[in-house]
């Protein structure tokens, strides 16, 4: 239904996209030093095919080359892959003027868990500046489902938006989806 509304608006299909996220547990060797076991997420985004994003919950975000994955295999002793927790979102990219909209289905294992909507306004590099503009755009096709301002924006003030910020939002979204079974919607950038 969302895609139909977008197409009515005049958006054009522009290929496909995919974001995936794997979860790693810190192994006993590290967590025994008094810290609680932290989760690390390794994510890929088809928009940045040469990069690999490694994020800690509420923590730093590391952007590495795509062969970071092989490194993670070697680090098995420290980080263990939780296979069952792999979650991904795949769908279609739409382009409408300078907006880039990605509507994807979030799947975890074999089951579909929800829909993700990513909206990007490419000309603007400061997320807070164009938030009102984004809101208006999202209202035009999502109606009452328009999300409130993402938490990333609060901390960013007026620094330049980066791909890592998108990934943090995807991580938060995926976490939310894991916990609850509803259909949340995320507005990004």
């Amino acid at each position: 239904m969302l895609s139909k509304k977008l197409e009515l608006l005049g958006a054009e299909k522009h290929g496909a996209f995919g974001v995936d996220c794997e979860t790693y547990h810190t192994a006993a060797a590290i967590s025994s030093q008094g810290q609680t076991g932290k989760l690390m997420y390794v994510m890929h985004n088809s928009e940045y095919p040469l990069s690999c994003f490694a994020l800690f919950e509420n923590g730093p975000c590391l952007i590495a080359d795509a062969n970071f994955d092989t490194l993670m295999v070697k680090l098995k002793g420290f980080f263990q892959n939780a296979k069952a927790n792999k979650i991904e979102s795949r769908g279609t990219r739409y382009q409408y003027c300078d907006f880039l909209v990605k509507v994807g289905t979030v799947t975890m294992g074999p089951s579909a868990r929800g829909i993700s909507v990513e909206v990007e306004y490419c000309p603007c590099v400061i997320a807070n500046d164009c938030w009102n503009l984004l809101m208006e755009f999202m209202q035009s096709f999502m109606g009452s489902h328009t999300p409130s301002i993402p938490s990333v924006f609060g901390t960013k003030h007026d620094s330049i938006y980066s791909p890592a910020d998108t990934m943090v939002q995807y991580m938060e979204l995926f976490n939310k989806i894991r916990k609850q079974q509803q259909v949340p919607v995320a507005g990004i950038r």
Partner: protein
Amino acid sequence: MADGVLSPGVNLEAFSQAIAAIQALRSSVTRVFDCLKDGMRNKETLEGREKGFVAAFQESLHSVSRDLGELERLSNLVGKPSENHPLHNSGLLSLDPVQDKTPLYSQLLQAYKWSNKLQYHAGLASGLLNQQSLKRSANQMGVSAKRRPKAQPTTLVLPPQAGLVATPELPILPHDSLREGSEKRIKDLFLLLRYVDDVINRIDRMFPEMSIQLSRPNGTSAMLLVTLGKVLKVIVVMRSLFIDRTIVKGYNENVYTDDGKLDIWSKSNYQVFQKVTDHATTALLHYQLPQMPDVVVRSFMTWLRSYIKLFQAPCQRCGKFLQDGLPPTWRDFRTLEAFHDTCRQ
């Protein structure tokens, strides 16, 4: 085939006769030269030899003139086939039997139509442009610029002649002045360059959220790279103190070409900035004050500065942010309020 195309004006009969006449002419001319080559034949007396030679020579010359007269008469009968054709001689191309291989004739016709149309449209355009004379032309500037130093006292003391130099012929000045050997003009030129630098510097200091980089990649005329907050970048091409061209690009877009020069030709990838570029060009034409070019630059920059809220200001008319997927890209020249392109009065 030739019958059909060469029209009734051509007399085929006369044609073949004329060809025969040409052959006759050629043979008689050959005879003249033969006669000259052979020289005097062997006769008993010297007198006899000369007589014989002269007679033969005279006769052959006569036959040449007779054949030539005949040819001239016939050529009048033949007429001029090419004149009947609208495309003159090029019309004969249509007679080419190998037309399928070389589509020269049809291409020629098309090119002809094109150039006709082009001429017509160019005529219309020049008529329209003459109606709306933009007061940016070089000559007016040169005259009025003379008065500028008096009208606008600046911190830099310009000699009165500097105004003369402020004409757009500037870029070729160094050559001329070298030829004339006049050092004064070079001095004036440098004073003018310093004056431009000075004006730009003052504007740069005036607006803290705006940074201006001045460069002169092509000699005297300056190019500015204006970065406005974290919103957009503008490339401004100047000709002394007059703005010639502006291009607006996104903050994250590349403004340099591969070899590190400012890219003054390519446009922005984003529709918003393409629109803003259009509006900025309109603004160039709007802010006109030939007597005080520095004021023009300053007001243009002030206008440009209002784009700092390009993505944040809603339209003053409809109160919305978006219209056809674009934010309010128009800024009023006087009030600097934001409007959508279609919402402005």
